[in-house]
Protein backbone atom coordinates (compact mmCIF):
# COMPACT_ATOMS: atom_id res chain seq x y z
CA UNK A 1 0.00 0.00 0.00
CA UNK A 2 1.46 3.32 -1.00
CA UNK A 3 2.25 5.81 1.72
CA UNK A 4 1.57 8.92 -0.32
CA UNK A 5 -1.64 10.80 0.30
CA UNK A 6 -1.82 12.50 -3.06
CA UNK A 7 -5.57 12.07 -3.64
CA UNK A 8 -6.37 13.14 -0.09
CA UNK A 9 -4.08 16.18 -0.31
CA UNK A 10 -5.63 17.24 -3.61
CA UNK A 11 -9.14 17.06 -2.16
CA UNK A 12 -8.11 19.21 0.78
CA UNK A 13 -6.40 21.69 -1.55
CA UNK A 14 -9.52 22.03 -3.70
CA UNK A 15 -11.68 22.56 -0.63
CA UNK A 16 -9.36 25.18 0.81
CA UNK A 17 -9.14 27.04 -2.48
CA UNK A 18 -12.91 27.30 -2.73
CA UNK A 19 -13.63 28.05 0.91
CA UNK A 20 -10.52 29.83 2.19
CA UNK A 21 -12.10 31.24 5.36
CA UNK A 22 -14.84 28.74 6.16
CA UNK A 23 -12.67 25.66 6.50
CA UNK A 24 -11.23 25.82 9.97
CA UNK A 25 -9.16 22.71 9.73
CA UNK A 26 -8.53 19.99 7.16
CA UNK A 27 -6.19 17.07 7.76
CA UNK A 28 -5.46 13.62 6.42
CA UNK A 29 -6.01 11.29 9.38
CA UNK A 30 -4.47 8.37 7.54
CA UNK A 31 -4.77 6.90 4.09
CA UNK A 32 -8.38 7.23 2.81
CA UNK A 33 -9.53 9.21 5.86
CA UNK A 34 -9.96 12.99 5.79
CA UNK A 35 -11.15 15.24 8.60
CA UNK A 36 -12.62 18.59 7.59
CA UNK A 37 -13.86 21.00 10.25
CA UNK A 38 -16.03 23.81 8.97
CA UNK A 39 -17.90 26.85 10.25
CA UNK A 40 -21.48 25.75 11.11
CA UNK A 41 -23.05 28.65 9.20
CA UNK A 42 -21.32 27.64 5.96
CA UNK A 43 -21.82 23.88 6.16
CA UNK A 44 -24.65 23.86 3.62
CA UNK A 45 -22.50 25.44 0.88
CA UNK A 46 -19.57 23.17 1.62
CA UNK A 47 -21.81 20.11 1.66
CA UNK A 48 -23.26 21.07 -1.71
CA UNK A 49 -19.75 21.54 -3.10
CA UNK A 50 -18.66 18.15 -1.74
CA UNK A 51 -21.64 16.43 -3.31
CA UNK A 52 -21.76 18.13 -6.72
CA UNK A 53 -18.15 19.06 -7.43
CA UNK A 54 -16.16 16.40 -5.60
CA UNK A 55 -18.56 13.48 -6.02
CA UNK A 56 -19.28 12.68 -2.36
CA UNK A 57 -22.81 11.59 -3.07
CA UNK A 58 -23.10 8.70 -0.62
CA UNK A 59 -23.75 9.47 3.07
CA UNK A 60 -22.58 6.63 5.31
CA UNK A 61 -23.70 8.09 8.63
CA UNK A 62 -23.77 10.97 11.07
CA UNK A 63 -22.18 10.89 14.51
CA UNK A 64 -22.59 13.29 17.38
CA UNK A 65 -19.88 13.51 20.01
CA UNK A 66 -20.34 15.16 23.38
CA UNK A 67 -17.16 17.04 24.41
CA UNK A 68 -18.64 18.17 27.72
CA UNK A 69 -15.27 19.33 29.09
CA UNK A 70 -15.03 21.75 26.17
CA UNK A 71 -18.74 22.63 26.38
CA UNK A 72 -19.49 21.68 22.81
CA UNK A 73 -21.00 18.99 20.63
CA UNK A 74 -19.31 17.89 17.49
CA UNK A 75 -21.50 16.72 14.63
CA UNK A 76 -19.69 14.54 12.11
CA UNK A 77 -21.05 13.65 8.68
CA UNK A 78 -19.36 10.59 7.23
CA UNK A 79 -19.31 10.80 3.45
CA UNK A 80 -18.24 8.42 0.72
CA UNK A 81 -18.19 8.64 -3.04
CA UNK A 82 -19.91 6.29 -5.46
CA UNK A 83 -19.76 8.74 -8.38
CA UNK A 84 -15.98 8.67 -8.56
CA UNK A 85 -14.68 5.07 -8.57
CA UNK A 86 -11.11 6.29 -7.95
CA UNK A 87 -12.07 7.53 -4.50
CA UNK A 88 -14.38 4.74 -3.36
CA UNK A 89 -12.18 4.06 -0.34
CA UNK A 90 -12.01 7.70 0.76
CA UNK A 91 -14.16 8.73 3.67
CA UNK A 92 -14.56 12.39 4.57
CA UNK A 93 -15.52 13.30 8.12
CA UNK A 94 -17.25 16.65 7.71
CA UNK A 95 -17.30 18.20 11.17
CA UNK A 96 -18.92 21.17 12.82
CA UNK A 97 -19.04 22.22 16.45
CA UNK A 98 -22.06 23.66 18.21
CA UNK A 99 -22.08 25.09 21.73
CA UNK A 100 -23.49 22.83 24.41
CA UNK A 101 -26.02 25.36 25.74
CA UNK A 102 -27.50 26.20 22.30
CA UNK A 103 -26.93 23.08 20.21
CA UNK A 104 -28.42 24.30 16.94
CA UNK A 105 -27.22 23.08 13.56
CA UNK A 106 -28.43 23.12 9.98
CA UNK A 107 -29.96 19.92 8.71
CA UNK A 108 -28.29 18.46 5.62
CA UNK A 109 -31.23 16.26 4.62
CA UNK A 110 -31.77 18.43 1.54
CA UNK A 111 -28.24 17.61 0.39
CA UNK A 112 -28.16 13.93 1.35
CA UNK A 113 -31.65 12.47 2.04
CA UNK A 114 -29.92 9.47 3.65
CA UNK A 115 -28.86 11.46 6.74
CA UNK A 116 -32.45 11.93 7.90
CA UNK A 117 -32.54 9.00 10.34
CA UNK A 118 -29.04 9.72 11.66
CA UNK A 119 -29.92 13.34 12.42
CA UNK A 120 -33.12 12.20 14.10
CA UNK A 121 -31.09 9.90 16.32
CA UNK A 122 -28.75 12.77 17.25
CA UNK A 123 -31.77 14.91 18.15
CA UNK A 124 -33.15 12.39 20.63
CA UNK A 125 -29.88 10.98 21.97
CA UNK A 126 -27.95 14.26 22.39
CA UNK A 127 -30.68 16.89 22.46
CA UNK A 128 -29.40 18.62 19.31
CA UNK A 129 -31.61 20.70 17.04
CA UNK A 130 -31.42 20.55 13.26
CA UNK A 131 -33.02 23.47 11.48
CA UNK A 132 -34.84 22.39 8.35
CA UNK A 133 -35.13 18.76 9.37
CA UNK A 134 -38.32 17.33 7.81
CA UNK A 135 -39.20 15.08 10.77
CA UNK A 136 -37.55 16.05 14.05
CA UNK A 137 -39.39 13.29 15.96
CA UNK A 138 -38.17 10.46 18.14
CA UNK A 139 -36.66 7.55 16.22
CA UNK A 140 -35.54 4.84 18.63
CA UNK A 141 -36.71 6.29 21.94
CA UNK A 142 -40.30 6.17 23.15
CA UNK A 143 -42.38 9.09 21.97
CA UNK A 144 -43.23 9.70 25.63
CA UNK A 145 -39.61 9.63 26.81
CA UNK A 146 -39.15 12.56 29.18
CA UNK A 147 -35.70 11.84 30.59
CA UNK A 148 -32.53 13.64 29.56
CA UNK A 149 -30.94 12.89 26.16
CA UNK A 150 -29.37 9.55 27.13
CA UNK A 151 -26.12 9.71 25.16
CA UNK A 152 -24.91 12.90 26.85
CA UNK A 153 -21.84 12.32 28.97
CA UNK A 154 -23.41 13.37 32.26
CA UNK A 155 -26.13 10.70 31.96
CA UNK A 156 -24.91 7.61 33.78
CA UNK A 157 -26.26 4.11 34.16
CA UNK A 158 -27.71 3.26 37.59
CA UNK A 159 -25.01 0.60 37.92
CA UNK A 160 -22.08 2.90 37.16
Amino acid at each position, binding site marked *: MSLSHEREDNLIKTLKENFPTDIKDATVMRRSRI*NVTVAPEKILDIALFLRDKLGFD*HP*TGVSAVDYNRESRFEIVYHLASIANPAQRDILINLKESVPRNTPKATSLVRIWPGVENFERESIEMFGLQFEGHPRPEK*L*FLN*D*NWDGPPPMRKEVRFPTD
Partner: protein
Amino acid sequence: MTTTDKPAQESTLGSPSPDEPGAQTLTLSVGPQHSGSGHMRLIVELDGDIIINAEPDPGYVHRGIEKIIELRNIIRSIPVIERPSIIDASNLNHAWVKAIEELQGVEPPARGQYLRCLLNEMNRIMSHLYWLSIYGVFLGHTTMFMWPLGDRELFIDLAESLTGARITYSYLVPGGVRRDLPQGFAEEAIKRTEYFEKRLDEYENIFFKNPLFTSRAKGVGVLSRQRAIELGATGPTLRGSGVDADLRKDEPYAAYSELDFKVHTRPDGDSYSRVMVHVDEMRESSQLIRQILEKMPSGPVRRKAPIVVPRGEAYGRVESARGECSFYMIGEGGDKPYRARYITGSYRNMAAISAVLQGVRLADMPTSWWSIDYWPVEADR
Protein backbone atom coordinates in the same frame (compact mmCIF):
# COMPACT_ATOMS: atom_id res chain seq x y z
CA MET B 1 -48.08 1.91 29.14
CA THR B 2 -45.11 -0.41 29.00
CA THR B 3 -41.71 0.82 27.97
CA THR B 4 -42.00 -0.63 24.49
CA ASP B 5 -45.35 0.96 23.74
CA LYS B 6 -45.33 3.77 21.27
CA PRO B 7 -48.43 5.81 20.60
CA ALA B 8 -49.73 5.66 17.05
CA GLN B 9 -48.94 8.45 14.63
CA GLU B 10 -51.30 11.42 14.57
CA SER B 11 -52.79 10.35 11.24
CA THR B 12 -54.02 7.01 12.58
CA LEU B 13 -56.12 8.57 15.31
CA GLY B 14 -59.73 9.66 14.86
CA SER B 15 -61.55 9.65 11.56
CA PRO B 16 -60.94 12.71 9.39
CA SER B 17 -63.77 14.35 7.51
CA PRO B 18 -63.98 13.38 3.80
CA ASP B 19 -62.36 16.65 2.67
CA GLU B 20 -59.27 16.34 4.79
CA PRO B 21 -56.13 14.85 3.35
CA GLY B 22 -55.91 11.23 4.35
CA ALA B 23 -59.68 10.72 4.25
CA GLN B 24 -59.51 8.50 1.19
CA THR B 25 -56.68 6.37 2.50
CA LEU B 26 -56.32 3.72 5.15
CA THR B 27 -53.47 3.66 7.63
CA LEU B 28 -52.34 0.27 8.90
CA SER B 29 -49.94 -0.50 11.67
CA VAL B 30 -47.92 -3.58 10.77
CA GLY B 31 -46.07 -4.97 13.78
CA PRO B 32 -44.42 -4.54 16.20
CA GLN B 33 -44.88 -8.25 16.78
CA HIS B 34 -41.93 -10.40 15.83
CA SER B 35 -42.41 -10.87 12.12
CA GLY B 36 -39.55 -13.27 11.65
CA SER B 37 -36.80 -10.73 12.08
CA GLY B 38 -37.10 -8.93 15.40
CA HIS B 39 -39.61 -6.40 16.63
CA MET B 40 -40.34 -3.36 14.54
CA ARG B 41 -43.35 -1.63 13.12
CA LEU B 42 -44.25 -0.30 9.71
CA ILE B 43 -46.92 2.39 9.44
CA VAL B 44 -48.42 1.79 6.04
CA GLU B 45 -50.76 4.18 4.27
CA LEU B 46 -52.93 2.55 1.63
CA ASP B 47 -55.02 3.75 -1.27
CA GLY B 48 -57.06 0.69 -2.16
CA ASP B 49 -54.41 -2.00 -1.91
CA ILE B 50 -51.57 0.19 -3.17
CA ILE B 51 -49.07 1.46 -0.60
CA ILE B 52 -48.68 5.21 -0.96
CA ASN B 53 -46.44 5.64 2.04
CA ALA B 54 -44.66 3.35 4.48
CA GLU B 55 -42.80 4.66 7.49
CA PRO B 56 -40.59 2.39 9.56
CA ASP B 57 -40.97 2.80 13.32
CA PRO B 58 -37.90 1.21 14.91
CA GLY B 59 -36.70 1.22 18.49
CA TYR B 60 -38.45 -1.81 19.98
CA VAL B 61 -35.17 -3.67 20.35
CA HIS B 62 -32.94 -0.70 21.15
CA ARG B 63 -30.31 -1.67 23.73
CA GLY B 64 -28.23 1.48 24.00
CA ILE B 65 -25.10 -0.37 22.93
CA GLU B 66 -23.20 2.84 22.12
CA LYS B 67 -23.56 3.85 25.77
CA ILE B 68 -22.71 0.39 27.10
CA ILE B 69 -19.44 0.23 25.16
CA GLU B 70 -18.38 3.63 26.49
CA LEU B 71 -18.42 2.07 29.95
CA ARG B 72 -16.59 -1.24 29.41
CA ASN B 73 -13.12 -2.09 28.35
CA ILE B 74 -12.63 -2.99 24.71
CA ILE B 75 -12.40 -6.75 25.28
CA ARG B 76 -15.49 -6.95 27.48
CA SER B 77 -17.39 -5.05 24.79
CA ILE B 78 -16.85 -7.69 22.11
CA PRO B 79 -19.78 -9.96 23.12
CA VAL B 80 -22.02 -6.87 23.26
CA ILE B 81 -20.94 -5.73 19.81
CA GLU B 82 -22.02 -9.09 18.38
CA ARG B 83 -25.52 -9.06 19.83
CA PRO B 84 -27.25 -6.84 17.24
CA SER B 85 -26.79 -9.53 14.64
CA ILE B 86 -25.84 -12.84 16.16
CA ILE B 87 -26.17 -14.52 12.78
CA ASP B 88 -23.45 -12.22 11.41
CA ALA B 89 -21.36 -11.88 14.57
CA SER B 90 -17.93 -12.16 13.01
CA ASN B 91 -18.34 -9.27 10.58
CA LEU B 92 -19.60 -6.89 13.27
CA ASN B 93 -16.77 -7.97 15.56
CA HIS B 94 -14.34 -7.29 12.69
CA ALA B 95 -15.39 -3.63 12.38
CA TRP B 96 -14.76 -3.20 16.11
CA VAL B 97 -11.27 -4.70 16.17
CA LYS B 98 -10.38 -2.93 12.93
CA ALA B 99 -11.11 0.49 14.43
CA ILE B 100 -9.11 -0.38 17.57
CA GLU B 101 -6.15 -1.74 15.61
CA GLU B 102 -6.15 1.36 13.40
CA LEU B 103 -5.67 3.48 16.52
CA GLN B 104 -3.17 1.10 18.12
CA GLY B 105 -1.17 0.66 14.92
CA VAL B 106 -1.27 -3.11 15.41
CA GLU B 107 -1.27 -5.31 12.33
CA PRO B 108 -2.38 -8.94 12.94
CA PRO B 109 -0.22 -11.72 11.50
CA ALA B 110 -1.11 -12.97 8.01
CA ARG B 111 -2.63 -16.24 9.22
CA GLY B 112 -4.82 -14.34 11.66
CA GLN B 113 -6.08 -12.17 8.78
CA TYR B 114 -6.95 -15.26 6.72
CA LEU B 115 -8.79 -16.83 9.65
CA ARG B 116 -10.80 -13.64 10.05
CA CYS B 117 -11.80 -13.76 6.40
CA LEU B 118 -12.69 -17.44 6.77
CA LEU B 119 -15.18 -16.81 9.57
CA ASN B 120 -16.47 -13.67 7.85
CA GLU B 121 -17.36 -15.58 4.70
CA MET B 122 -18.94 -18.42 6.68
CA ASN B 123 -21.01 -15.81 8.50
CA ARG B 124 -22.04 -14.18 5.25
CA ILE B 125 -23.43 -17.49 4.02
CA MET B 126 -25.13 -18.21 7.36
CA SER B 127 -26.72 -14.78 7.48
CA HIS B 128 -27.92 -14.97 3.87
CA LEU B 129 -29.35 -18.47 4.46
CA TYR B 130 -31.25 -17.33 7.54
CA TRP B 131 -32.59 -14.39 5.55
CA LEU B 132 -33.55 -16.67 2.66
CA SER B 133 -35.46 -19.04 4.92
CA ILE B 134 -37.56 -16.17 6.26
CA TYR B 135 -38.10 -15.00 2.71
CA GLY B 136 -39.57 -18.47 2.13
CA VAL B 137 -41.89 -17.99 5.10
CA PHE B 138 -43.07 -14.64 3.76
CA LEU B 139 -43.91 -16.27 0.44
CA GLY B 140 -45.65 -19.21 2.09
CA HIS B 141 -43.06 -21.56 0.59
CA THR B 142 -42.43 -24.04 3.41
CA THR B 143 -39.61 -25.90 1.65
CA MET B 144 -37.67 -22.69 1.22
CA PHE B 145 -38.07 -22.13 4.95
CA MET B 146 -36.76 -25.58 5.91
CA TRP B 147 -33.92 -26.09 3.42
CA PRO B 148 -31.81 -22.99 4.08
CA LEU B 149 -32.15 -23.37 7.84
CA GLY B 150 -31.08 -26.99 7.51
CA ASP B 151 -28.12 -26.20 5.27
CA ARG B 152 -27.08 -23.39 7.57
CA GLU B 153 -26.15 -26.10 10.07
CA LEU B 154 -23.34 -27.16 7.72
CA PHE B 155 -21.58 -23.91 8.45
CA ILE B 156 -22.68 -23.61 12.06
CA ASP B 157 -20.94 -26.93 12.77
CA LEU B 158 -17.80 -25.67 11.04
CA ALA B 159 -17.88 -22.43 13.03
CA GLU B 160 -18.36 -24.40 16.22
CA SER B 161 -15.30 -26.53 15.55
CA LEU B 162 -13.28 -23.40 14.73
CA THR B 163 -14.38 -21.11 17.55
CA GLY B 164 -16.15 -23.25 20.15
CA ALA B 165 -19.50 -21.48 19.70
CA ARG B 166 -22.34 -21.92 17.23
CA ILE B 167 -23.27 -18.31 16.64
CA THR B 168 -21.70 -15.69 18.88
CA TYR B 169 -18.00 -16.40 18.69
CA SER B 170 -16.06 -13.44 20.09
CA TYR B 171 -13.37 -14.98 17.88
CA LEU B 172 -11.72 -11.77 16.68
CA VAL B 173 -9.66 -9.88 19.21
CA PRO B 174 -7.34 -6.90 18.74
CA GLY B 175 -4.13 -8.37 17.31
CA GLY B 176 -5.60 -11.42 15.60
CA VAL B 177 -7.97 -14.28 16.41
CA ARG B 178 -8.40 -16.43 19.50
CA ARG B 179 -7.34 -19.81 18.16
CA ASP B 180 -5.97 -21.66 15.17
CA LEU B 181 -7.72 -24.11 12.84
CA PRO B 182 -8.63 -27.45 14.42
CA GLN B 183 -7.30 -30.66 12.84
CA GLY B 184 -9.15 -31.84 9.77
CA PHE B 185 -11.03 -28.54 9.36
CA ALA B 186 -9.95 -27.89 5.78
CA GLU B 187 -11.06 -31.30 4.44
CA GLU B 188 -14.43 -30.99 6.15
CA ALA B 189 -14.93 -27.41 4.95
CA ILE B 190 -14.11 -28.30 1.33
CA LYS B 191 -16.57 -31.20 1.43
CA ARG B 192 -19.29 -29.04 2.91
CA THR B 193 -18.90 -26.04 0.58
CA GLU B 194 -18.96 -28.33 -2.46
CA TYR B 195 -22.12 -29.98 -1.19
CA PHE B 196 -23.62 -26.56 -0.45
CA GLU B 197 -23.06 -25.34 -4.00
CA LYS B 198 -24.96 -28.37 -5.30
CA ARG B 199 -27.74 -27.48 -2.91
CA LEU B 200 -27.86 -23.96 -4.33
CA ASP B 201 -28.57 -25.51 -7.75
CA GLU B 202 -31.49 -27.34 -6.18
CA TYR B 203 -32.73 -24.08 -4.63
CA GLU B 204 -32.57 -22.59 -8.11
CA ASN B 205 -34.92 -25.22 -9.50
CA ILE B 206 -37.41 -25.27 -6.68
CA PHE B 207 -37.48 -21.58 -5.84
CA PHE B 208 -35.56 -19.00 -7.85
CA LYS B 209 -37.07 -20.15 -11.16
CA ASN B 210 -40.45 -20.77 -9.55
CA PRO B 211 -43.23 -18.43 -10.81
CA LEU B 212 -44.49 -18.31 -7.22
CA PHE B 213 -41.37 -16.31 -6.46
CA THR B 214 -40.57 -14.57 -9.77
CA SER B 215 -44.08 -13.24 -10.36
CA ARG B 216 -44.04 -11.54 -6.96
CA ALA B 217 -40.48 -10.26 -7.13
CA LYS B 218 -39.68 -9.21 -10.71
CA GLY B 219 -40.41 -5.53 -11.25
CA VAL B 220 -41.78 -5.17 -7.70
CA GLY B 221 -40.38 -2.72 -5.15
CA VAL B 222 -37.98 -0.92 -7.47
CA LEU B 223 -35.20 1.18 -5.91
CA SER B 224 -33.41 3.22 -8.58
CA ARG B 225 -29.64 3.50 -8.65
CA GLN B 226 -29.73 7.24 -7.96
CA ARG B 227 -32.15 6.86 -5.05
CA ALA B 228 -30.14 4.03 -3.50
CA ILE B 229 -26.98 6.16 -3.56
CA GLU B 230 -28.48 9.32 -2.12
CA LEU B 231 -30.33 7.38 0.61
CA GLY B 232 -27.03 5.86 1.67
CA ALA B 233 -28.20 2.28 1.05
CA THR B 234 -25.50 -0.33 1.36
CA GLY B 235 -24.68 -4.00 0.83
CA PRO B 236 -26.91 -6.24 -1.28
CA THR B 237 -29.57 -3.49 -1.40
CA LEU B 238 -27.13 -1.11 -3.09
CA ARG B 239 -25.67 -3.80 -5.35
CA GLY B 240 -29.18 -4.89 -6.33
CA SER B 241 -29.62 -1.37 -7.74
CA GLY B 242 -26.59 -1.78 -9.97
CA VAL B 243 -23.82 -0.17 -7.89
CA ASP B 244 -20.69 -2.31 -7.67
CA ALA B 245 -19.71 -1.06 -4.21
CA ASP B 246 -18.17 -3.61 -1.87
CA LEU B 247 -15.65 -2.64 0.78
CA ARG B 248 -13.82 -5.93 0.37
CA LYS B 249 -12.80 -4.60 -3.07
CA ASP B 250 -13.01 -0.83 -2.59
CA GLU B 251 -10.90 -0.69 0.53
CA PRO B 252 -9.45 -4.20 0.91
CA TYR B 253 -8.92 -5.21 4.52
CA ALA B 254 -7.63 -8.36 6.24
CA ALA B 255 -6.63 -10.79 3.47
CA TYR B 256 -9.17 -9.73 0.84
CA SER B 257 -6.58 -8.03 -1.36
CA GLU B 258 -4.97 -11.45 -1.92
CA LEU B 259 -8.20 -13.27 -2.67
CA ASP B 260 -9.87 -13.60 -6.01
CA PHE B 261 -13.59 -12.88 -6.05
CA LYS B 262 -16.24 -10.98 -7.93
CA VAL B 263 -18.64 -8.28 -6.74
CA HIS B 264 -22.11 -9.29 -7.88
CA THR B 265 -24.60 -6.66 -8.98
CA ARG B 266 -27.95 -6.61 -10.73
CA PRO B 267 -29.13 -3.56 -12.67
CA ASP B 268 -32.89 -3.54 -12.06
CA GLY B 269 -33.23 -2.58 -8.39
CA ASP B 270 -36.34 -4.72 -7.84
CA SER B 271 -36.95 -7.38 -5.17
CA TYR B 272 -35.77 -10.07 -7.57
CA SER B 273 -32.42 -8.31 -8.08
CA ARG B 274 -31.81 -7.95 -4.37
CA VAL B 275 -32.63 -11.61 -3.78
CA MET B 276 -30.39 -12.80 -6.59
CA VAL B 277 -27.48 -10.68 -5.35
CA HIS B 278 -27.73 -12.59 -2.07
CA VAL B 279 -27.72 -15.89 -3.91
CA ASP B 280 -24.71 -14.96 -6.07
CA GLU B 281 -22.86 -13.82 -2.96
CA MET B 282 -23.43 -17.16 -1.26
CA ARG B 283 -21.82 -18.95 -4.21
CA GLU B 284 -18.93 -16.49 -4.17
CA SER B 285 -18.39 -16.87 -0.41
CA SER B 286 -18.49 -20.63 -0.73
CA GLN B 287 -15.64 -20.62 -3.25
CA LEU B 288 -13.86 -17.99 -1.14
CA ILE B 289 -13.82 -20.35 1.84
CA ARG B 290 -11.99 -23.00 -0.22
CA GLN B 291 -9.65 -20.35 -1.61
CA ILE B 292 -8.82 -19.02 1.86
CA LEU B 293 -8.02 -22.51 3.14
CA GLU B 294 -5.80 -23.14 0.13
CA LYS B 295 -3.88 -19.84 0.31
CA MET B 296 -3.64 -19.59 4.09
CA PRO B 297 -0.01 -19.11 5.19
CA SER B 298 1.39 -20.76 8.27
CA GLY B 299 2.54 -18.88 11.34
CA PRO B 300 1.07 -17.29 14.44
CA VAL B 301 -2.59 -16.25 14.53
CA ARG B 302 -2.36 -13.48 17.09
CA ARG B 303 -0.03 -10.67 18.03
CA LYS B 304 0.08 -9.02 21.40
CA ALA B 305 -2.10 -5.92 21.52
CA PRO B 306 -2.61 -3.69 24.55
CA ILE B 307 -6.05 -3.25 26.11
CA VAL B 308 -5.93 0.42 25.34
CA VAL B 309 -7.62 2.85 22.97
CA PRO B 310 -4.89 5.39 22.18
CA ARG B 311 -5.75 9.06 21.82
CA GLY B 312 -7.07 9.83 18.37
CA GLU B 313 -9.78 8.99 15.88
CA ALA B 314 -10.36 6.01 13.64
CA TYR B 315 -13.06 4.84 11.30
CA GLY B 316 -13.10 1.06 10.88
CA ARG B 317 -15.37 -0.16 8.10
CA VAL B 318 -16.02 -3.67 6.87
CA GLU B 319 -18.47 -5.27 4.45
CA SER B 320 -20.86 -7.27 6.62
CA ALA B 321 -23.61 -9.52 5.28
CA ARG B 322 -26.09 -6.62 5.23
CA GLY B 323 -23.69 -3.97 4.01
CA GLU B 324 -21.14 -1.67 5.51
CA CYS B 325 -20.66 -1.97 9.26
CA SER B 326 -18.49 0.71 10.78
CA PHE B 327 -17.16 2.10 14.01
CA TYR B 328 -16.19 5.73 14.37
CA MET B 329 -13.98 5.51 17.38
CA ILE B 330 -12.53 8.30 19.50
CA GLY B 331 -9.96 7.28 22.07
CA GLU B 332 -8.32 9.22 24.88
CA GLY B 333 -5.77 6.70 26.09
CA GLY B 334 -7.89 4.63 28.50
CA ASP B 335 -9.11 1.05 28.19
CA LYS B 336 -12.51 2.28 26.98
CA PRO B 337 -13.31 4.45 23.97
CA TYR B 338 -14.41 8.03 24.66
CA ARG B 339 -17.03 7.55 21.98
CA ALA B 340 -17.68 4.61 19.69
CA ARG B 341 -20.27 5.27 17.04
CA TYR B 342 -21.77 2.05 15.74
CA ILE B 343 -23.32 2.23 12.26
CA THR B 344 -24.65 -0.99 10.78
CA GLY B 345 -25.91 -2.02 7.36
CA SER B 346 -29.53 -2.37 8.47
CA TYR B 347 -29.50 1.06 10.07
CA ARG B 348 -28.47 2.59 6.76
CA ASN B 349 -30.90 0.51 4.73
CA MET B 350 -33.78 1.63 6.95
CA ALA B 351 -33.92 4.75 4.76
CA ALA B 352 -34.61 2.56 1.73
CA ILE B 353 -37.77 0.95 3.18
CA SER B 354 -40.12 3.81 2.28
CA ALA B 355 -38.59 4.16 -1.18
CA VAL B 356 -38.98 0.45 -1.92
CA LEU B 357 -42.52 0.08 -0.61
CA GLN B 358 -44.09 3.08 -2.36
CA GLY B 359 -46.42 1.88 -5.10
CA VAL B 360 -46.23 -1.78 -4.07
CA ARG B 361 -49.41 -3.79 -3.45
CA LEU B 362 -50.12 -4.67 0.17
CA ALA B 363 -49.92 -8.38 -0.65
CA ASP B 364 -46.37 -7.88 -1.93
CA MET B 365 -45.28 -5.87 1.09
CA PRO B 366 -43.65 -8.66 3.14
CA THR B 367 -41.53 -9.91 0.26
CA SER B 368 -40.54 -6.45 -0.96
CA TRP B 369 -39.65 -5.27 2.51
CA TRP B 370 -37.74 -8.42 3.36
CA SER B 371 -35.73 -8.25 0.13
CA ILE B 372 -33.90 -5.28 1.73
CA ASP B 373 -32.61 -7.70 4.38
CA TYR B 374 -33.46 -5.20 7.10
CA TRP B 375 -32.69 -6.64 10.50
CA PRO B 376 -34.43 -4.55 13.20
CA VAL B 377 -32.09 -5.60 15.99
CA GLU B 378 -29.06 -4.61 13.93
CA ALA B 379 -30.64 -1.26 13.08
CA ASP B 380 -31.67 -0.42 16.65
CA ARG B 381 -28.43 -1.57 18.30
